[in-house]
């Protein structure tokens, strides 16, 4: 350290030390700003990541459905350039995917991951005089576990129990509660085209999402095909990719190769992801404002010190200390406040984050959990960098003004 910088540091430290209370106020301001910023970032990113993880876990990474992005061309459109068809009503029943099992093995051939089929049928589930509409989903219990978490969400039984009875059904626990059905009861299930099946309840499913648990039921693929009134029907093929982030490209390739609408989780939740971006933007603005306000305290303190030290500044300048050296002294004072404040703020932020992580949240839509907290060095680095730059600017402004004073003006007035 040069003698000059050493001099500036020792004067700065002396000023700061002899104003312990003011300095403490400034330090606490910065610490509070940094602490809450860090905590808020941990909370925001925690909830965001938690949400995405749940989303990605709960849903297939890629959903290939029996729909097409563009309606298939009508014969008239192919024959005549000028023909345009309007007001066409789509068929009431879903067309299904052609040759689903050939397609599934084709996809398995090049995708690193798992593939499973499903059949959707709307039905009314009735037991003991009470009935509810439900989405009855036909699945393949052997493959299902590879694309979804369903096997882990089965209560009082397992997915494999679907093979136990000829018409076995797993009811969402909310649905079961509403109609009062228990494991072993036989419920009647009426499909959209009027077929009635008597199904034995073999287990309950509990996803934790109330809307799903209140309205979903699982059966074997062929049972669902009977309910839908279409043999061989498969509505959806779900793909779980090893590399979650590659879902978009895989979906695009499946769509190109098969012609079926194939939606990656990113595309399905585009609006949500962009909502996160807006949320982050708002967070950055709020955090920035907190840190800016925190630096007002520093500005105030450095201004006060420069005012109190006008005479000392005049003395130093009259002795021949340069304007720059005098300025450095007060900028260093701001830096000291900023540094100590940031260090304390890191501790405060960590403490607040840990405390927030203990908070249990109860939601009517979800199972009770703890607030998700994401710890990232980046949050600390960012908050620290912003707080320090703000402190530097906050100190620089009064320092520049103070250092530019003409010593003779002060000395003339004082003697």
């Amino acid at each position, binding site marked *: 350290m040069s*003698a000059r910088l050493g*001099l500036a540091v020792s004067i700065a430290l*002396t000023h700061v030390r002899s104003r312990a209370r003011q300095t403490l106020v400034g330090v606490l301001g910065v610490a509070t700003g940094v602490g809450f910023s860090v905590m808020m970032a941990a909370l925001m990113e925690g909830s965001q990541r938690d949400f995405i993880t749940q989303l990605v876990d709960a849903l297939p990474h890629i959903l290939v459905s029996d729909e097409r992005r563009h309606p298939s061309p009508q014969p008239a459109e192919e024959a005549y350039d000028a023909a345009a068809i309007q007001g066409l009503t789509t068929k009431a029943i879903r067309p299904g995917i052609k040759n689903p099992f050939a397609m599934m093995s084709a996809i398995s051939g090049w995708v690193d991951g798992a593939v499973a089929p499903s059949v959707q049928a709307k039905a009314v589930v009735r037991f003991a005089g009470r009935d509810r509409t439900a989405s009855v989903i036909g699945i393949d219990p052997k493959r299902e576990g590879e694309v979804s978490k369903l096997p882990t969400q089965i209560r009082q039984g397992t997915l494999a129990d679907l093979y136990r009875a000829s018409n076995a059904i797993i009811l969402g626990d909310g649905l079961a509660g509403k109609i009062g059905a228990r494991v072993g009861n036989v419920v009647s299930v009426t499909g959209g085209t009027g077929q009635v099946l008597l199904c034995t309840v073999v287990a309950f499913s509990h996803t934790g999402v109330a809307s799903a648990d209140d309205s979903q039921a699982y059966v074997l693929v062929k049972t669902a095909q009977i309910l839908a009134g279409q043999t061989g029907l498969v509505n959806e093929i779900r793909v779980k990719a090893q590399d979650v982030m590659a879902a978009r490209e895989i979906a695009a390739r499946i769509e190109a190769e098969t012609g079926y609408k194939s939606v990656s989780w990113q595309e399905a939740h585009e609006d949500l992801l962009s909502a996160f971006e807006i949320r982050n933007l708002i967070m950055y603005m709020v955090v920035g404002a907190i840190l800016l306000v925190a630096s007002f305290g520093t500005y105030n303190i450095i201004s006060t010190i420069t005012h109190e030290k006008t005479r000392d500044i005049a003395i130093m300048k009259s002795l*021949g*200390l*340069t304007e*720059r050296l005098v300025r450095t002294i007060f900028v260093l004072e701001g830096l000291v406040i900023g540094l100590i404040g940031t260090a304390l703020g890191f501790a405060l932020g960590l403490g607040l984050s840990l405390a927030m992580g203990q908070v249990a949240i109860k939601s009517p839509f979800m199972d009770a959990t703890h607030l998700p907290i994401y710890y990232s060095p980046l949050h600390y680095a960012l908050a620290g960098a912003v707080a320090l730059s703000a402190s530097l600017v906050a100190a620089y402004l009064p320092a520049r003004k103070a250092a530019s004073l003409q010593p003779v003006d002060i000395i003339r007035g004082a003697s």
Partner: protein
Amino acid sequence: MNGTPLIRAENLGRVITGEVPATLITGADLAVAPGTFLAITGPSGSGKSSLLYLLGLLDLPTTGEVYVEGRATSRLPEDARAAIRLEKLGFVFQFHFLLPEFTALENVLLPMRALGRLTGAAMEARGLALLGSLGLEAHARKRPDQLSGGQRQRVAIARALANDPAVLLADEPTGNLDTHSTEQVFAILRRLVDAEKRAVVIVTHDLALAARADRQVRVVDGRIVDEAGQA
């Protein structure tokens, strides 16, 4: 006089334009040679302090020029003028003007550290020697509020001498001191001239004291009116 004067003022003028325009100094010519003890006297408000600030590069003249060791200074950038103050000129004011939070020694070290020529240990040794030569060895570690007025003024002189300046400029250095302290300070200044061949310029009201200087100049209404020198 031997060689170039340490400080030479040529047709020096300083007017203040502003709400209350005022002529502080006008048409002043003055040269300060090495080994001279110069006293500036004159009535209150005549411009003595103003002249000293100009000679010490604390203020900029509106006309004329101040040469330090032959070099014109009024057009130099502020940092260059500060560097000349730091290295070649020493200041003592009527009020001690020490930094209150620092010890006597730390105050004396301040200009040395700002110059940064010596090692830390050498600076400290020199600081202690300076304080010792002014009879302050026992007070090096005291803060200004723990010192008497005369002791503070001697610390201020030690600080002015820190970088071994050729010229010491003092504005009423004994103005606040009792007779004993005044004598002590005067003796120190005298020694700087006689033993160390520095130039000392003091502003004083004390005509008896001024009479013991080598040269006297009298300022009235911003003009140097007469110069009475001995030897």
